[in-house]
């Protein structure tokens, strides 16, 4: 059905895809997994014509479609959904689906104006089909709701219905279960099976929720750092050590000296609810970080880890619940105030200011401060991160991924925070940099600043931290001493299902 041959895609220095070959067989459900930044979505984008490959070819039903524009690929029979839902938010649900029928309909502007039979026929038939598809994905009764107003899970399903409307032979699903609760995921699995069995579709899906992957996929392919590291049946893949490493992270060479952090509470979160649009992402989360402690928050993608951090740092307003820094209630305060009070948030994907120089990034980090010691701290960080000192005059955008992560952390420290929150610091980094990142984290804690660490590399995170929280679809599933959690099966489950 689909054959990807020695595909590479580079962004500047970053090799998002490197020499990947993959075959999707007729009528199968193939799972594509791998840690964030492994290149899964890039592969989708190349196949569907949103990106041109740097090298390699894509064939669909024997026909070479390499470098075709997206609309042409769709017309030929490949449909996709997006990782970050891209619905037409203002339109009613049913309209979204009808738009999907665009390539399968012919009515021109003139038809519409003259209100010809073609037009009327297509319109009525189109709506019928759209309703049917909505019913199929379980959205019957929601036809007239604006897409943007639907709950998160419903939006994911609507995107599938919209993709189906293009009458594809091959369906590409990008993290269809992200943000869904267990029940919804079950339903989704059933749906995917039905698509294959009754509609005869071939499905290629990216997913982090292993219950789903292991539940529906005939075969699984694994990407890591842009390369395919495994392909085969669920069982083969599950047992493959390379895969387990990629997910849970390799054991560290040397165990980190974890000073017991049992000081008084620095950050306390109580029964926090928050989310975007209609639905909540966090359903009453409580956790705390103590002085001298590294607390880590782990869990599958879409579990709500980043949302939690964003709520703490004020980017997102809590709906209910308490957030206290020391004795001060900071829930719902403006981000810049919260930073001023001493919470530094190093966001996912680093978010360094590419057009500013390294030094300017650091100075920006010190914005909330008024004291005289900024220069001193700059020098100190220069000692700690020699790379940054060397590169201080060049635009931060020119740094490598690892260096950028260092900069992001250093920038956070420039605020002299009482608490440092790190979101996926090792994301997409080469192994040697991953080690470096965790060293730095330990260094920070040693320097007396408690850390709240969100990590996908659970193994390393738990090895480094004193206390761990496992977040599962917006709720704390388990918590405990990091050491204990390391052995816990719940953790395995959360990641590999």
């Amino acid at each position: 059905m689909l054959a990807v041959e020695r595909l590479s895609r580079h962004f500047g220095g970053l090799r998002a895809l490197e020499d990947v070959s993959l075959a999707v067989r007729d009528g199968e459900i193939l799972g594509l997994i791998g840690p964030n930044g492994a290149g899964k979505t890039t592969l989708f984008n190349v196949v569907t014509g949103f990106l041109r490959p740097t090298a390699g070819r894509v064939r669909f039903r024997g026909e070479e479609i390499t470098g075709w524009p997206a609309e042409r690929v769709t017309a030929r029979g490949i449909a996709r959904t997006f990782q970050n839902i891209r619905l037409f938010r203002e339109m009613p649900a049913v309209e979204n689906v009808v738009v999907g029928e665009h390539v399968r309909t012919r009515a021109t502007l003139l038809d519409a104006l003259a209100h010809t039979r073609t037009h009327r026929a297509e319109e009525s038939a189109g709506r019928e089909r759209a309703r049917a598809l909505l019913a199929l994905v379980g959205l019957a009764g929601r036809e007239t709701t604006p897409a943007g107003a639907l709950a998160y899970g419903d939006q994911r399903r609507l995107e599938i219905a919209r993709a189906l409307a293009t009458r594809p032979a091959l369906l590409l699903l990008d993290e269809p279960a992200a943000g869904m609760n267990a029940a919804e995921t079950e339903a989704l699995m059933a749906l995917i099976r039905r698509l294959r069995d009754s509609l005869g579709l071939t499905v290629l899906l990216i997913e982090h929720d292993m219950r789903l992957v292991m539940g529906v996929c005939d075969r699984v392919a694994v990407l890591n750092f842009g390369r395919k590291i495994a392909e085969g049946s669920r069982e083969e893949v599950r047992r493959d050590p390379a895969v387990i490493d990629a997910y849970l992270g390799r054991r560290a060479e040397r165990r980190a000296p974890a000073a017991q952090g049992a000081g008084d509470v620095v950050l306390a979160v109580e029964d926090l609810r928050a989310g975007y649009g209609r639905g909540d992402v966090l359903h009453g989360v409580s956790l705390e970080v103590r002085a001298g402690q590294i607390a880590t928050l782990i869990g599958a993608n879409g579990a709500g880890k980043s949302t939690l951090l964003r709520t703490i740092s004020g980017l997102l307003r809590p709906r209910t619940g308490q957030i206290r820094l020391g004795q001060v209630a900071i829930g719902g305060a403006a981000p810049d105030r919260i930073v001023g009070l001493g919470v530094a948030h190093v966001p996912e994907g680093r978010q360094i200011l590419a057009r500013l120089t390294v030094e300017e990034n650091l100075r920006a980090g010190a914005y909330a401060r008024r004291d005289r010691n900024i220069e001193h701290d700059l020098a100190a960080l220069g000692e700690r991160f020699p790379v940054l000192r060397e590169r201080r005059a060049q635009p931060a955008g020119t740094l490598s991924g690892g260096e950028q992560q260092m900069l992001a952390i250093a920038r956070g420290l420039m605020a002299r925070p009482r608490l440092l929150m790190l979101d996926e610091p090792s994301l997409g980094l080469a192994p040697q940099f991953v080690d470096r990142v965790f060293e730095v984290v330990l260094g920070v804690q040693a320097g007396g600043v408690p850390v709240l660490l969100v990590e996908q590399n659970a193994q390393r995170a738990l090895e480094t931290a004193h206390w761990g929280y496992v977040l599962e679809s917006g709720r704390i599933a388990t918590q405990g001493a990091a050491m204990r959690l390391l052995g816990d099966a719940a953790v395995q489950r959360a990641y590999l299902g």
Partner: protein
Amino acid sequence: MTVFLQQLVNGISLGSVYALFAVGFTLVFGVLEIVNLAHPAVLAVGALVAYTLLSTLGVGLPLAIAGTLLATGLLGLALDAAAFRPLRARRAGPLASLITSIGAALILVSAAQRVWGTEPLGYPPGIVPLRFFSAGGVTISLLQIVILGTVMVLVVALRLLMTRTRVGIAIRAVAENPETASLLGVPFNRVVAFTLFLTSALGGVAGLLVGMLFQGSVSPFMGDTYGLKGLAAIILGGMGDITGAMLGGLAIGVGEVMIVQYLSSSYRDAVAFGLLFLVLVIRPTGLLGQQRSREA
């Protein structure tokens, strides 16, 4: 040859006036990614305030400049509070703020009409340093030099402000990524307000200078023609780029006078904007600009 040189001088001096406008546009666009069409009006108000200070109250030039800076600066704050901040709160698109800035411009101009009337005004002769230097038939006035100098100093000063100072870095942080900036403790609204204070204050003084350069041209509408050319300049120079704005302004100024001299005075604007259109089509982000991160 003399003619060419004289025209070059004319072009540069005209260009530096455009540049004065353009810098204001480009600063606001750089931070908010909106085109502030009220800027020309602010500039006119500046010139008129200066007129009142110089003619009616008869204060000296330095005091007048200070007064204008303050007055238009505050106007800038008001502008932000009334026209832009409510939209930011709602995360409205650039189109909305374009419209509100037009509304603000209407209000400012008509208010100015009520206060200062519509008759073009001129600063009292004594104020303006009327000195001329001639060399080989080429005449240049002290004022032209002053204005060109001002523009250059302004650009250097702004670049320093943007790279060396706490607030400057904050402004650029906001310009590149408001969310990250706020995570670093940068108060978005305050930074934006400061930017508008700054640009409007500068705009006011620009108005004063233009009013001195073109004696008897001070009126609520004086900004109109230069507004469009200022926009042209920042497109040419790449939106948001300060140096680009200056170069763009100079380029357009020189271009225009050369068209007048060697092509046809009637088609000056046609040619100028025609070229502009082409530039945009060939190089969508201007001659000097590079694709902006948040755009598209």
